[in-house]
């Protein structure tokens, strides 16, 4: 299996006044294409820091971060932006949608940034994706007209619309109730299975963790266990969540 993310001896320190806060200490890990990985650990253990480094929105103090075969330290700001746009998808804890754009426009936005597709192509891709995440009736709702779960679905659709190799999600379910959160994880998992997209998400929630192929545990900036690489997404089951949401949980409305 080819590795899409490799971290070797990555440390990250944050300056805090005269102090230096070590957030990650000599972390090494690799994540293969198509994995569904959870980053777990207590608050302050460095989960967000790790995801930010993989997502190329932050730079390590030392060590190398290699994303899709590219050493990110060697890339210019411009190249990093390009990498984020083409290869990465982001899902945020608090959804972070563009408030003034409606569902369709939010999802379409990365495609406009890419500028590769015609209006018609974009319309097809976005509509299909919105149907997939169960929002085909909400094209023209603005974020403040949607529930939390719906907003996160929009965010997922936005993260997926460019068909990225890797989707990074920092506590995607933390702002959602358990049922809705389960449905979101289900949706992510099903996309992971059907499209082979690599998902790396952080969570506090043991129930959410169960769905992961692999759980990487952080404590105090170090990896305490990086889990076993399950061959085909077999680690964890999700019957209890599926039951709550019905047969096609990610299609359920709020």
């Amino acid at each position, binding site marked *: 299996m080819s590795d899409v993310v490799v971290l070797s001896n990555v440390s990250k320190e944050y300056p805090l006044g005269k102090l230096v806060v070590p957030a990650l200490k000599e972390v090494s890990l690799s994540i293969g294409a198509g994995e569904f990985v959870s980053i777990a650990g207590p608050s302050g253990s460095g989960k967000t820091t790790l995801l930010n480094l993989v997502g190329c929105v932050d730079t390590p103090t030392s060590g190398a971060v290699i994303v899709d075969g590219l050493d990110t330290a060697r890339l210019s*700001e411009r190249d990093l932006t390009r990498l984020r*746009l083409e290869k990465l*998808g982001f899902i945020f804890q608090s959804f*972070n949608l563009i*408030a*003034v754009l409606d569902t369709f426009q939010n999802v379409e936005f990365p495609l406009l940034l890419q500028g590769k597709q015609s209006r018609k192509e974009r319309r097809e891709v976005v509509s299909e994706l919105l149907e997939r995440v169960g929002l085909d009736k909400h094209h023209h709702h603005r974020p403040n007209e949607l529930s939390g779960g719906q907003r996160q679905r929009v965010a997922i659709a*936005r993260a997926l619309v460019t068909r990225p190799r890797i989707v990074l999600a920092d506590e995607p379910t933390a702002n959602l109730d358990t049922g809705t959160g389960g449905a979101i994880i289900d949706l992510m998992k099903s996309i992971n299975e059907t499209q082979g997209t690599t998902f790396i998400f952080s969570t506090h929630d043991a129930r959410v963790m169960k769905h992961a192929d692999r759980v990487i545990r952080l404590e105090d900036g170090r990896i305490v266990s990086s889990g076993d690489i399950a061959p085909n997404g077999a680690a964890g089951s999700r019957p209890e969540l599926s039951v709550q949401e019905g047969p096609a949980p990610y299609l359920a409305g709020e």
Partner: protein
Amino acid sequence: MGRLLLIAARNLMQNRRRTALLSAAIVAVTMLLVLLGSLGNGIQATLLEAGTAMLTGHVNVGGFYKITSGMGSPILVEAERTLKDVRELVPESAQIVDRRRGFGKIVSESDTVQGALTGIDATNEDALRGVLRIVEGSLDSLGGEDLSILLFQKQAERLKVSVGDDVTLSSQVVRGQTNALKVRVGAIAKDMGLISIMSSYVSKNVLRDLYQLDPDTTGVIMVYLDDPDQAATVKAKLREGLLQRNHRLMEDEPDAFYHKFQQVAGEDWTGMKLDVTTWEDELANVQWTMKTFDTITSLLIGVLLVIVIIGVMNTMWITVRDRTREIGTLRAIGMGRLRVLVMFLLETVILSTVSALLGVSLGAAIAGLLNWLQIPVSPGFQIFLMSDTLRLVVAPYSLVMAVVVVPLLTTFGALFPASRAARLKPVTAMQHAG
């Protein structure tokens, strides 16, 4: 780009209060810019209209006659010959008139005023007839053989005379003695600002008699052209032509004739020398009114623009702070720095362009309304404005200027905060609280 425009426009709508406030400020400044500009144009237009009728032709052939080298008089000898030469040299002229020039006291039983005395033949003074507003008597009284004077209202009030009354003119004549002459008030005209404070008009014969001049003399030959902008060309042509026809010419000096006495008196020549000037030369000294006004206006506008730019800058800082997380998100999902910059600048561009357009339209409309209402101005301002009602002339190019310059400046003000937004590290922006 289209989507960025949409985002910018919608964000403006989202922050309605902020947008409305800033927009109101930009509208107000643009409006003021237009109004003050057209007031300036109005004064300029009035000044030129009044000036070219009352003080100068478009091109003038004046000059000095010196009996001794120590003193010059503003007299043209051989008036007929010179007039004929000028007519032949400027066949394209719209009109050619000649006036006598003098200076003296006007004395009544109650008071004395002093000023320039211009001798005219009212029968061919069309331009003058166009700008003078006679309130009593008739300009025609300065057209015949009568010894008549036209006074401006304030002069008449001070002298306590009205049409039909007699006043006495007294003036120093060439040899240093003082002559006096009784003339009848033939007309009283409305005041015309600065110009009317220190001058009045008399019939040509008055100056002939006062100075005991030869009939074949005059003071200045004034050439009116269809296109005043041709004045410089015509001046050059006249100078050359007059020299060829054996007239002596003074050095070319772009100044009003009444400023040249001293210089002429200091020069070592006698006899007749002609002086050719344009209306711009003659009005050079009255133009200070314009310059003063322009300076005050520019200062005022400058200060207001700076305030608006600071306002825009401030608003932009707030906008950027409010949307720092959004910036982080957009950068994370692959939006480049330039696009972030453009997205924020577009807000200002839209806001200021729409506001400037509105301000310009309002300004032009108000200027039209003020003109139509014929707002009277206070006497103090009348001197300045050369008119007793407010007159605004809206110049199309100044409207275009306002619509271009105001958005440019405000966008410039937004540049700094917006570029700060664009340069933010994505992670820093995302971690921003709020």
